[in-house]
């Protein structure tokens, strides 16, 4: 018998610059913060700590001094486990892979209650230093990095190609930042909440042309814990919960660019993984009520929403400018504020997407609630969407 996986509890740290410089007298340390988040998530689930039997961590950034963080936390929280205690890593997909590993423990019957959790502290490390690492992750160290590509330079090239092929414009793309900030203004855990205008977005300094400061992700710190359970436990809890309805994965076997020229901005990985997730869930894109996508830059929200069939190809930016993807629109996208405004503590970012979908699908999203939301889709990626991991979630009230 296949076990269904549910998210019964969740808690996150508001995204902000929490990390202190290494020479500061008083530090903010990862384990103290994460412990509070775990306790809050378990209180939300209404379960006792003795019921937890798997811990799957998103691996912290290398700046976290406490190594073997997972086993350290198992001690810090005194959590004996019979399922697994592990850390996973996969760039921006890290937290979604942790979610998968925790879900698999439940599917395989190794655990009935599994935590998917993690903390990403990096904001006190200067961007120029951080990029010395990240440029080696998003490209070939010998055949890309020597030219000075940065992680978001690839997205900028997606933007240039999109504007060229679909006669779109920087203004249309920038409307995504305005929309996401408006959403973030309604989200108490968002990093940036003051509404912004299109003119303000366009006036920011360029970062990777055509994208400026407000069209790329800010740097921030975050922590999250999802309490994942066998659906039978969720049912007897009497609480609203979220059921994992479908999952899809596809890696195109390429890193940043495909050496065999392809349609780079079609995001074939998101298309294939999305189809697999919809198929497993027994739904189509038209059934989806809202989407919380892994989209570090505005253009990526457009491309991923097109690849997942939420908006027609080539029209995503225009439809955002027209309000179709806003709260109150046909298919609200990034109701949390997205990576530009909710924030992007990269190794835990997908946890925040799951958190937002849980809030929405259980009717707890307050002022930004999507009325009657029942089905949500979320994504995570590697590289320039060379791989995508897609989940379809359903609210059960």
């Amino acid at each position, binding site marked *: 018998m296949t076990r269904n996986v549910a998210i019964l509890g969740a808690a996150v740290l508001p995204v902000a610059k929490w990390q202190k410089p290494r020479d500061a007298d008083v530090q903010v340390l990862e384990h103290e913060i994460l412990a509070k988040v775990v306790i809050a998530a378990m209180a939300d689930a209404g379960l006792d700590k003795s019921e937890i039997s798997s811990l799957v961590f998103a691996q912290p950034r290398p700046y976290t001094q406490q190594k073997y963080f997972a086993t350290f936390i198992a001690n810090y929280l005194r959590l004996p486990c019979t399922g697994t205690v592990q850390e996973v890593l996969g760039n921006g997909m890290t937290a979604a892979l942790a979610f998968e590993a925790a879900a698999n423990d439940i599917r395989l019957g190794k655990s009935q209650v599994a935590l998917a959790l993690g903390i990403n502290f990096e904001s006190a490390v200067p961007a120029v230093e951080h990029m010395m690492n990240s440029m080696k992750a998003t490209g070939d160290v010998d*055949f890309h*990095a*020597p*030219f000075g*590509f940065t992680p978001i330079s690839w997205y900028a*090239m997606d933007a240039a190609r999109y504007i060229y092929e679909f006669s779109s414009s920087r203004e249309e793309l920038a409307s995504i930042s305005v929309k996401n900030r408006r959403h973030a203004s309604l989200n108490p855990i968002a990093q940036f909440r003051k509404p912004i205008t299109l003119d303000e977005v366009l006036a920011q300094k360029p970062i990777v042309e055509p994208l400026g400061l407000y069209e790329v992700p800010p740097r921030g710190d975050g922590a999250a814990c999802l309490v994942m359970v066998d659906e039978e436990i969720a049912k007897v809890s009497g609480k609203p919960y979220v059921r994992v309805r479908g999952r899809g994965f596809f890696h195109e076997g390429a890193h940043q660019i495909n050496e065999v020229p392809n349609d780079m901005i079609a995001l074939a990985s998101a298309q294939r993984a999305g189809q697999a997730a919809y198929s497993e869930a027994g739904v189509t894109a038209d059934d989806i009520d809202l989407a919380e996508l892994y989209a570090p830059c505005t253009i990526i929200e457009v491309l991923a929403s097109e690849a997942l069939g939420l908006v027609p190809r080539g029209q995503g930016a225009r439809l955002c400018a027209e309000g179709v993807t806003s709260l109150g629109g046909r298919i609200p996208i990034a109701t949390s504020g997205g990576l530009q405004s909710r924030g992007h503590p990269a190794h835990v970012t997908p946890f925040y997407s799951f958190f937002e979908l849980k809030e929405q699908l259980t009717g707890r999203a307050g002022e930004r609630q999507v009325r009657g939301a029942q089905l949500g889709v979320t994504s995570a990626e590697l590289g320039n969407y060379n791989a995508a991991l897609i989940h379809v979630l359903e609210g059960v009230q």
Partner: protein
Amino acid sequence: MLASQAIDRIRAFPPRMTEFTKQFWWGLASGDFQTTRCDGCERLTFPPKPFCPHCWSEGVRWVPLSGRGKLYSQTVVHAAPMVFQEETPYRVGIVDLDEGLRIATRVLSETEPGLDTAVEIVVLQYRDGPLFAARPL
């Protein structure tokens, strides 16, 4: 033979060279742009590899590339990693070579080149070794 341009500084983040890839980098220094082709399925690959990624045959040979192609996309990097600080802003892009290979490299152009513009690969002769770049024809 590729056109060549001297650059009076060292490479900010030099590529590592192996016994295998030294053929590429040494060749580049003398103006040759080349990669490997599979003896079995005859497909090209880039970067050059000591095997064919398509069929996994280890029978490959070095072949010259024309160094001509089209600019698929481009951007200008203003926020760069530490080692590239002195070079900002700089232009990079993705080039589809005429042989049907997609590569990524620097783009030499003062003004914004149109996409799908024809480009040629040139050698950048830094004080410590070569890199390559694309420039509009």
